[in-house]
């Protein structure tokens, strides 16, 4: 603020008349008589230099429109800021906070959380000088914003601060000098109702944080208290959420079922209990391993959500929505849930269509990108089981029979596996279709967005004066899901590496495949399945790099002792008690099949090297395992190949006649 303004400010006098108008305006405003308020405030028009008048006038006009002319209000606020040179980057006066706060509120209802947080981070610095009512409003809002972007840790620290300052009134800064003060330890007075209400709200935020942080014990205590009130709908939802997180799915379903239908009406509350109910039912069924039923519920939720948000639109133009229902649609969250469930229901292309919608909003979510990649992979290969169906693979060996009599020829397949797709066409990878090319792009995004091991680097405390820090860069976020535990991040990293190696192999990029696979094997904690995959991928990439001996080392069956899908080890912590993932399914189901696969691949290596007799011997061993477990369906084709290479076409011809023609006829 320049010298001149400062003088102007200190010398600015308010006449008694003006004070009276202002008081009248406030009184009418409190009575929700916005027309009356507007009449009074118009009398203050002479105070053109007073941005508070301009601000309140715009606000009252907005209220008078039943909170519908949001765009107009937003524009007035912007122009007031321009006119009075109020900039959020240079915020240094508590009086200016309210303008910014109102802008942030509008952004919040428009679901622009990052922008709202950017503003509120600055406004929040003035929480101490603010008057009590505003301070409470601002702090609750700041907490809600952090929860919107699923930064529960930040929300918790805000809550702690509030409890220490606004409620208890003890500063938590250590004062060494005892003389400074000790006098305002006025003993606890009975709380006034407003404070009581504020504490209640704060408590609800706390519970949401605990649930998000998976701090189940504390959440349990608080929720049981709330649930004593049998009518408390919010407590029912929270309680059901808690049971769901614990894996008590039936209990969760029961509690959710007790929520009365349509108790939160969208047009009044800005959210619909029915949408929440259907969605949460879907979430519970997904965890039960019933993805199809889950999809059904998500679709119901989507239908309801669309009906609510669209019917609002029909009332008039889109800008005519009341503020609190502007951003009430849960479309993207529901699409995300539906997409993941469809993926588990083995409907990858539909899942892809849903998730590609979700990722438009949640493009900083590493796990979501990973899910998209999984859709692409599953679209090209539904299950590994196809490679172990000997009957089916037999039929695929011969693709055509041409000519006749002495000139009869059979045409063999060029490949039995369908994974590989070496494309020479230079098509763009960025086309959002469920292809392996797009998968590699998704995986790159996922890897980039993955939270790093060491927690976020501390922001340097002291900065060069006069230089405002830039807008925080887009940090990877878990939204719309809860924050991931270090364990989940670890397993996500492993999965990204495994998928990246697989996709690179399929696309013929064996150098990258090797890099990813080796990195996978270096991870500190690795599930048995990922270990198996890491070795298999390394081996294949090495063969393609003409390093067959190294490949053979990877294929040693002793490398893989089990094929569990969970991360091994880890201490017992809260995270272990979270049981929300559907029962995992993967082929191969048992170690024997995994070993058969490794041995078959050894036989391939030996064949490539020209050690045909050894290869045949190995294949015989694998074939003998076929009584006990599934073995790769490629065996017959490899035997056929080896016989041909050995210059013995007769056994090969006999094989073909034996397996193929009987199937054809």
């Amino acid at each position, binding site marked *: 603020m320049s010298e001149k303004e400062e003088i102007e400010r200190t010398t600015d006098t308010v006449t008694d008349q003006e004070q009276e108008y202002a008081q009248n305006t406030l009184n009418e405003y409190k009575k929700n008589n916005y027309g009356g308020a507007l009449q009074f405030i118009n009398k203050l028009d002479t105070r053109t230099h007073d941005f508070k008048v301009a601000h309140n006038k715009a606000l009252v006009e907005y209220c008078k429109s039943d909170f519908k002319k949001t765009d107009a209000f937003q524009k007035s606020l912007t122009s007031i800021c321009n006119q009075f040179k109020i900039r959020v980057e240079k915020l240094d006066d508590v009086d200016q906070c309210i303008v910014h706060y109102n802008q942030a509120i509008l952004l*919040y209802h428009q679901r622009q959380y990052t922008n709202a947080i950017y503003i509120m981070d600055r406004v929040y610095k003035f929480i101490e000088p603010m008057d009590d009512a505003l301070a409470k409003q601002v702090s609750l809002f700041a907490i809600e914003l952090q929860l919107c972007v699923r930064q529960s840790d930040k929300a918790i620290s805000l809550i702690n601060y509030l409890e220490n300052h606004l409620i208890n009134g003890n500063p938590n800064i250590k004062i060494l000098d005892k003389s400074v003060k000790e006098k305002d330890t006025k003993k606890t007075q009975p709380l006034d109702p407003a404070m009581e209400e504020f504490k209640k709200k704060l408590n609800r935020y706390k519970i949401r944080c605990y649930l998000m942080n998976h701090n189940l014990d504390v959440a349990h205590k608080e929720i049981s208290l709330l649930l004593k009130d049998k009518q408390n709908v919010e407590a029912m939802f929270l309680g059901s959420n808690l049971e769901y997180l614990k894996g008590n799915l039936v209990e969760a379903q029961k509690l959710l079922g007790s929520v009365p239908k349509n108790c939160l009406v969208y047009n009044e509350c800005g959210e619909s209990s029915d949408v929440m109910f259907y969605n949460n039912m879907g979430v519970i069924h997904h965890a039960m391993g019933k993805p199809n039923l889950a999809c059904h519920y998500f679709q119901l939720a989507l239908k309801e959500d669309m009906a609510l948000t669209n019917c609002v639109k029909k009332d008039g133009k889109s800008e005519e929505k009341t503020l609190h229902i502007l951003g009430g649609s849960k479309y993207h969250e529901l699409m995300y849930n539906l997409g993941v469930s469809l993926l588990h229901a083995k409907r990858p292309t539909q899942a892809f269509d849903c998730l590609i919608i979700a990722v438009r909003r949640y493009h900083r979510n590493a796990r979501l990108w990973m899910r998209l990649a*999984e859709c692409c992979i599953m679209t090209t*290969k539904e299950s590994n089981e196809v490679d172990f169906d000997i009957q089916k693979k037999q039929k695929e060996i011969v693709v*055509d029979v041409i000519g006749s009599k002495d000139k009869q020829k059979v045409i063999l397949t060029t490949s039995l596996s369908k994974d590989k797709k070496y494309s020479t066409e230079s098509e763009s990878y960025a086309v959002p279709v469920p292809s392996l090319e797009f998968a590699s792009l998704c995986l790159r995004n996922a890897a980039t967005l993955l939270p790093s091991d060491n927690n976020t680097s501390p922001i340097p405390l*002291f900065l060069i004066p006069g230089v405002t820090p830039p807008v925080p860069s887009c940090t990877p976020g878990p939204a719309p899901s809860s924050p991931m535990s270090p364990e989940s991040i670890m397993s996500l990293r492993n999965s990204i590496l495994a998928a990246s190696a697989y996709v690179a192999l399929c696309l013929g990029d064996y150098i990258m495949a090797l890099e990813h696979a080796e990195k996978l094997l270096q991870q500190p904690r690795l599930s048995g399945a990922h270990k198996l995959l890491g070795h298999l991928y390394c081996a294949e990439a090495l063969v*393609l790099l003409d390093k067959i001996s190294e490949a053979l080392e990877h294929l040693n069956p002793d490398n893989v002792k089990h094929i569990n899908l969970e991360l091994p080890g880890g201490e017992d912590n809260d995270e272990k008690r979270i049981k929300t993932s559907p029962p995992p399914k993967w082929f191969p189901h048992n170690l024997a099949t995994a070993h058969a696969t490794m041995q078959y691949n050894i036989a391939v290596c030996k064949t*490539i090297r020209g050690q045909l007799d050894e290869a045949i011997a190995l294949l015989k061993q694998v074939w003998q395992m076929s009584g006990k477990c599934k073995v790769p369906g490629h065996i017959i084709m490899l035997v056929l190949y080896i016989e*041909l290479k050995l210059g013995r076409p007769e056994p090969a011809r006999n094989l073909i006649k034996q397996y193929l023609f009987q199937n054809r006829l």
Partner: protein
Amino acid sequence: MALSIEQCDIVLDILDEGKVRSHTFESLYNELHKKFDPADYFKVGTFLVVLLQQDLLKEAEQKLVAITLLHELYRGEPLPNTPFANVFIHLLHPPEHQSSVGAPKLEYPGQLPRLSAPEKYFLTQLLSDVPKDAILKKTATQVVNADVGNFQAADFSMIELLLAEKQSELPQTCKTGIPIILSLPEKTNNYSADTLEYEVLVKKIASGENAYMNKVYRPEFVILAPPLLDTQDELVWLNPTNPQEHTIAYDVTMCVPDTAGQEARQLMNKAYKSALSIQQQQQLLAELESDSKLVYHIGLTPSKLPELVENNPLIAIEVLLKLMQSKQITEYFSVLVNMEMSLHSMEVVNRLTTTVDLPTEFVHLYISNCISTCETIKDRYMQNRLVRLVCVFLQSLIRNKIINVQELFIEVQAFCIEFSRIREAAALFRLLKQLESGDIGLVSSPTINSKSKLEG
């Protein structure tokens, strides 16, 4: 990458049974040369090889013409550079027929026909580095029926070596392909003589987008796709959030005169410009004391802090202490640490360090700032004064255990050495040495490394 049906017809026509008997190699080659673009030679060559491999040429003369044409396609180029060089070596040195006596006949995938002695002789001549006009003037029939006796096989070992070298450069996976076309003759005695059927067969093999003749089978790995990510609490659970609770706020302070802090604010305005009288100071401090929120309303901003520190350090200390809980305190600190070093600023920092827990980074930064100010100042007198101040300040910090010297050891020691002419600096240096040797149990000694660096 395959021939069109018409192109197949042309090649088949050139290789027609009657035609190969009556026409010279030269004229057949000329016909081929006329009808094909050099860009298509490779396709034609592949086609000829497939015809040979799949035993689709009935007569010896046809085979011979095919071989000759294959060679002449790349007329004028050195043999090892041509794509089909290996075919000729194979023709000259066919693999063993039988592994041992009585064993079944061996037959390898993509095997080429066996040549008779006159044919081999002809091929030798063709491959040799001699003018070929004479031999190409012959017809295939003449060659096949010629009597060559026991000819001396020419030596192509150089070429073979070159080719083998080229092969060894390729990765092994590239060399594993076998043709996907496999003969499976039906057991029957009547041989097909239907030329129409024959042509259909040949064209199926050689033409079209995915012509079989271009395809190979290689041993395949079984590759497993990874399992779906197993993760917790992924799907979005919806709880009520009461969005309508967050609503806009009316500014109740509109037109409410800010009388409470009026006087304090005026005093502050003065305090930025000049030192206040004792009485004024007391009045300001008393007002600030009476209302704990007043400190936020006296118009102080971080940018004004340096002026306040320079003119009224006591006020600055009190105000900062009151602002300790403020979210803005780091901004004030940041300004304080970066402002020009002076007696007053040092006084403020010193008071703060003894009163509240200051962030370590802040203190360290301030010390660095002091040291560099001392080093850069031009005025010798001022410099001595400042150095003394800094030394006393540092001693006080160290003795009060406010800083851990170890973290600043190198910097502080260098500072002492640079200004060793000043008594206070020497004293500080001694204090450091005592700390290092453990005489004073404040800190452990620094590493040998840093010591040698200092002394070296």
